[in-house]
Each structure stands twice: as C-alpha cells, then as structure tokens.
C-alpha cells in the first residue's frame, strides 16, 4: 500500500511552468530521494504536498484515499510534516517554542503548557545530544543560533510534528559531518517504525547512504523512479541531464576571446567574504566568464561583493590595471562596473515610474546630470532600448505595463548609455520568456565582442554552456572546478556541482 501518491500534479506561476507533470509514489518505511537540477520542480512538488503551494491540476492520494490539501494546516491533518529548505522559524522565539510552534501544547484551553513544551523540546533536542554545538539550549532565541543550529531546529520541528509522512527539502546543506550522521541514524530509526520519508539532497554520497529509491525530475516532469541499490551515480546524473549530456557545448555558439584588445578587464585575487572564500579569477576583455553550480553556493555573493553591495573580508579586486574596491554600488558604478540582478523587483525596477526614468538613473549618476531635458534624454535612451528589441508603447508608460522580459531589457539598457568596463550578470534571465532570453544573450555576446569583460552567473546550465568561454563551478562558497574548451559539457558541469564540498 502506498502512503502517498501524486499523479500528474502541475503548477504554473504566470507564464512559467514550475511543474508540468509530477508523479511520485511513497511507500511506508522508505526514504525516497527526489533528484533534479536547479529549478526542475522538486521544491514546488514538496510545497504542494505540504500545502503551502496550491496545485493547478493532478491528484493526491494519502493512504490510497484521494485528498485535497488546501493549506499547511490541512496537510498537517493529513499527517504530513515538512522541513523547509528556506526554514520556517520565528527568529525571536526560543528553540523550545519553535519546535512546538505548529501545535503548541495548551492547558485550560488557552494557556501554554510550559512543562509539556519543555519536555517535548527536551525529547527532540536529546536526539541530537552532543552534536548541537556550543550555545544551543532550549531557551536560546533562534535568531542567536548559528546557521547549522537553526537547521537542526527546523529538523526538530519537522520531527516534532510526529507525522507519518515527512518531507526533508535539503535538510543537510549547513550541517557538519557528525550532525548529518546523527540525523541519518534518526531517519533510519523512523524508517524502521514505518514512516514514509521524502528526502532532497544534492550530495551524492548522502543519497547513497540513506536513500532506498530515487525519483528523477527534469524540467518539471517526473522521468523515472529507480532502486538506488541497482543504479550508480553516473546513471542518475545522466537521467537528470537528459539525452545530450555528453555532448560538448557547441563551439560555434561561443564567441572567441577578442585577443586584439588585450589585457584583463577584471582581476579578483583571494576574495573572501560572507558566503564565499578564496575566490580568484580573471576576466579578459571580450571574454564571458560563466559561474556555475547549484543555487546559493556563493556565486551571487561574489558578484554583489565586487559591486560593493556585499561584504568583503579580504582579497583584492582590479579593474583593468587599477585597484578597485568599491565601498558601495554608487562608487562601483562611477568606476565602470555594472551589475544586473535576476531579482528585478528587489534590485532593479523602480515600480510605478515611467520607462524613461527606469532607463536613466545610471546616466544621471555617471554624467552627474542635474537637469534633464526629455528631448535630449530620449535621443540617448532610444538606441539603448532598440538594441534589444524592447517592446513598449511609449517612454512615459509605467514600468509595470511591461512583461518581465521587457522589464529586464529596460534594466540592462540602463547600462548601455554610458558603457561600463565590466558587466556582472547575476542570473539575469530568471523568470523571463525564451525570446527575451535570446535577445538578451545576443546583446551580451555583442557587448563582449566590443571588449567588455562579462561575468555571467546563471542557474540554467544551458545558458552557461551556450555562452560562456570558461565556466567556474562553485561549491560551498569557493570555486571547485574550472571548465574550459571541450570540458564544458553538461555532464561535467553536473558532476562538479554535485560533488561533496
């Protein structure tokens, strides 16, 4: 009898299909691993099961009974508990309160039963006795804990739901060896007691150590389910990548480095800061350097740090031959560094303002422009927007009237009026449509050909393989591998990304 069964579950956010067809069958007493590359739909699938995302279609069965999961509360009542990848903790509540937050013990119907709360917390903290680390106690505020300790609290919270069906979405990303070992012992014990466990991890060794079966998801679709005992990592990676995994990236699509211009555009030496350490690389003029690897391995942190928006503990940055250490983005912009973020709404768009105001802020800053004359500005703005085939009704329409792709084009057009020397692209195509992507990359290549040094971080491996001259694969905050020439294959990229840090 299956504990949980999903068939044909789908979810779309606007035009983006996050999950096309999710199928999954979970048995009692097994650890079922979900695997798939960045953005393949694993987390969406988990959130649908946990009720925090409502599916557009498909059926869900718990214990062979069809159910509708209308929200996290309803998921709980169906016996589903989850560990959230991004954690679901109240930072200013204590550890013991967080562990029981989903179902606070009460007496006389309204008062919190403190002694029960404490006992319950002690039970789950006891499971991790000895590996919690310094400063961990039941009455510490979660906000004062280290990242790994917070992750342990989220694990305890999931365990405390005592749900027959538990989901762990990347529960080990911040944990050390001993903590992972202990966690796996607990999982094995739960397995023996007949719980069903869904487990997501990017570490192949962990998957081997704990998993029974694996379901592979690619581009929002369930590909297959395998017995982990009867397969090997290479097969799994091949299935995740899809058919053409061994083919080198097509050479013709990559522009050659313009040797004639000569010199390096950007040099980074031993850069360390929050979220990354000992990162060194050079970008030549006319070169596109790719940053690859799983989400959040330090790629964005490095780019933001160079742009003066993050923290740098040590290291050196040179633009051209001169030392460059921007203390804030304003400084970085003045000195010819450009940064485009994929998180448009947070880092780029001035919402509610006309398009022209969204194209010109960099121009204002670099030209120290005090008074703007629309006629003159328009002459500068038009070619920048046209170079990417930006579609808009008029320059004075609000930014919100544009699609995501066109908004991103406007953001990039900002940097084209006064040419920078270095362009940092932080997952610039997040959530934009295919034709806009094509326009964008055509422009990026053209800019490279004109001698800009470009760093491209993309969460989509195809974009890296198709556009970057070299790829640095990030793992755990540092560069674990450099792929050049014929090594730039999907297979190599995945393998480097999934290696244990």
């Amino acid at each position, binding site marked *: 009898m299956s504990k949980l069964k999903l068939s044909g579950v789908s979810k779309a956010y606007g035009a983006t299909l996050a999950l096309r067809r999710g199928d999954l069958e979970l048995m009692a007493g097994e650890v079922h691993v979900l695997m798939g590359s960045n953005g393949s739909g694993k987390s969406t699938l988990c959130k649908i099961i946990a009720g925090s995302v409502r599916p557009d279609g498909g059926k869900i069965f718990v214990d062979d009974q069809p159910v509708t999961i209308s929200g996290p509360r309803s998921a*709980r009542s169906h016996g589903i508990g*989850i560990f959230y990848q991004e954690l679901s903790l109240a930072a200013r*509540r204590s550890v013991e309160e967080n562990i029981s937050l989903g179902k606070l013990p009460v007496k006389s119907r309204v008062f919190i039963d403190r002694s029960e709360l404490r006992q319950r917390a002690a039970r789950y903290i006891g499971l991790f006795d000895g590996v919690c680390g310094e400063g961990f106690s039941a009455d510490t505020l979660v906000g004062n804990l280290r990242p790994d300790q917070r992750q342990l609290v989220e694990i305890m919270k999931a365990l405390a739901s005592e749900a027959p069906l538990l989901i762990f979405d990347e529960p080990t990303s911040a944990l050390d060896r001993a903590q992972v070992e202990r966690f796996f012992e607990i999982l094995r014990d739960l397995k023996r007691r007949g719980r069903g466990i869904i487990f997501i991890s990017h570490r192949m060794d962990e998957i081997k150590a704990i998993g029974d079966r694996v379901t592979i998801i690619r581009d929002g679709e369930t590909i297959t389910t395998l017995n982990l005992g009867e397969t090997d990592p290479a097969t799994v990676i091949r299935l995740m990548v899809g058919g053409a995994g061994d083919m080198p990236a097509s050479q013709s699509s990559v522009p050659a480095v313009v040797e004639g211009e000569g010199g390096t555009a950007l040099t980074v030496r031993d850069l360390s800061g929050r979220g990354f350490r000992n990162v060194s690389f050079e970008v030549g003029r006319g070169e596109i350097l790719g940053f690859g690897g799983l989400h959040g391995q330090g790629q964005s942190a490095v780019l933001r740090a160079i742009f003066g928006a993050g923290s740098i503990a040590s290291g050196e940055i040179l633009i051209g031959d001169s030392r460059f250490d921007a203390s804030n983005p304003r400084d970085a912009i003045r000195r010819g560094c450009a940064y485009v973020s994929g998180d448009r709404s947070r880092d780029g768009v001035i919402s509610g303002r006309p398009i022209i105001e969204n194209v010109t802020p960099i121009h204002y800053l670099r030209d120290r422009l005090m008074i703007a004359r629309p006629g003159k500005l328009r002459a500068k703005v038009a070619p920048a927007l046209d170079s990417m085939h930006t579609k808009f009704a008029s320059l004075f329409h609000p930014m919100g009237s544009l699609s995501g792709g066109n908004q991103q084009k406007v953001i990039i057009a900002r940097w084209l009026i006064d040419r920078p020397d270095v362009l940092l692209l932080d997952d610039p195509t997040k959530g934009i449509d295919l034709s806009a992507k094509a326009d964008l990359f055509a422009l990026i290549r053209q800019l490279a050909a004109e001698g800009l040094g470009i760093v491209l971080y993309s969460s989509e491996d195809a974009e890296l393989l198709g556009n970057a001259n070299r790829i640095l694969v990030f793992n755990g905050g540092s560069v674990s591998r450099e792929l050049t020439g014929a090594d730039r294959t999907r297979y190599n990229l995945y393998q480097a990304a999934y290696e244990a840090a």
Partner: protein
Amino acid sequence: MAETATVPTYRRAGGIGRLLERYPFLPALVIVAALLLLNGFFSPNSLTFRALTGLLSTYMALILLAIAQTYVVYAGDIDLSAGAILSLVNVAIVVLMERWGGGAGAVFLALAIGLLLGLACGLVNGLVVAALRLQAIVATFATSIFFTGLALYILPVAGTPAPALFWRTYGGRLFGVPFVFYILAALVILLAVMSRTRLVTQLLAVGDDQQAAYQTGLPVIATRIKGYVLCGLFSALAAFCITGDTASGDPLVGGKMTLYSVAAVVLGGSALSGGWGTVVGSLLGALTIGLINSVVFFMGTPSEWQNFVQGLAILLVLMAGVLAGRRARS
C-alpha cells in the same frame, strides 16, 4: 525558490545583551526612573504619594491604550483607530449611564455594553485588515474616521457629565488606598495571565515572520483578527479610565491619544515590525510620556513652548533607548 546566498548573521549576546533580551523594557525602566528624579529635582512636591496618584489616574487611560496597541504591534500590524474606539466607548457609556439614571446597576450595564462595543470595533478592524487584506495603516485610519463619526452621532458636543458615583469611585479611595492602585494591580495580574496564553505566542510568531508562521500551520488570519479584538477590548478599558478621569463624555477625546499609544509602544522597546516586545514596556512607555509632560510643566516652560519641549524630549528619550539597545548588543 528563494536565493539565500549570504550566510545570515548571528550574534552571541553579552551579559547586558542577554539581560536586555529577556527584559527588553529595561531601558524604558531606567528612563522612567530618571524622569522621576528630574521631576523631583524641579519640584519635590511632584514625588509625593498624592502627586503620583494623580499622575497615574491621569495616564492610566494612555497606559491601557498603549497596551491595546501592543497586541496588534506584536503581530506586525498597527491600529490607528484605537483612540477613536476610546472616544466612541467614552461617549456611549456616558450617554447610557445618564439615560439609565446613573445608579450602580446602570453603571455596570453601561460598562458591559462599552466592553462589547470595544470588542465589536476590534472585530471590524481585524476583519478589514486581516481577512480583507487591506493595508493596516490606511484601513484603520479609515475605520477611525468611521468610529469618530459614530461617536459624534451619539454625542455631538462634549460635555455630558458622567454620574458622580462613577468618577468619585475612580478618583476616590477604597479601604484607604486610591482606587487607581487597585486598577493597576488588576492590570498587572491580567497582563501576567495574558502573557501565558497561546494567543500571545502565536501573535508574536506571526509578527516575527508571517510566511514562516503560515507554513508552520498557524492560523495566521484568525490570529491577527484576535489581536485586533484584544486591542478593541483594552481600548474600551482605557475609555473607562478616561471617563473616570475627565468625568464627562467627549467624542474627540481619544483622537490625539492614538499616536501617543504608538509612541509608548516604541519607547517601551517593542519592534513596530512585529514579533518582539512586552506589554510592561508599553506601560512604562506610557508613563514616560506622562512624566515628560509633567517635567515640562514643572520646569516652568512657558505655555507657548510646551509642545516644542515635549516633542524634543520624546525624541531624546527615543534616541537614548535606541543607543542603549545598540550599545548592549555590540
């Protein structure tokens, strides 16, 4: 999928930091003590038992209103209609007491209806803000105008007196002890009981991180509504005190008090963004505002300068609180 590239900061609080973490109202307590000393310095008479009783009975309404505000601020919301609820309950009970003859029975019945009215106003706010998902600031600003309108309909001009029985009790003594101290004692017990409820923890969890609370399976909307209902309840209690203090009905009496209540919450060390604070802090914050006003008076500030000095003093106290907190944490 949320991108969390940077490792979040964490800190290990030192001795004072830890103390402040457990009792976030400590700076407010220090400030209240300092203001008491200042009062004594400018006018020794202001520290007599009689003067302090007067101060307490004047500012008890603001204390209760600040506490009312605290419960919505816990959840990251705000209630700009708290003062209007106070006005509405004030005129409603005064008019009812007068109409029913001003006897003990009439007084108690009117107070019961006043409480129900406060609860109802809180429920309206909660439904508008949490269930209809309107912006708390603007939505409660709108309901405040609406409640003021109702108050003006019930009593178009200020001045209807409250029955003597009511205000004599409030301003008088019971077994030789001023009545406000019984109110204070009852309030402290009530707050201690409230702080043990599941609701308060849920309000703080919702204010801490609403998305996390939702994903944890907390009833986020219901919790926020309950916060507003609590606010309505305490606003009604505040109205009882203002009625006892002023001995009359005034449809606009609470208008100015709303933002004072918000200021008191912040002075008491609570975070306006939610998830962090104490009702004791708000109590002290309200006392701080009362003491500032009294210091300004006893300093002999010319009347045309009093507002100026009051504003300046509140800013100074706010800065002192922020600095003390920052110093302790670093």
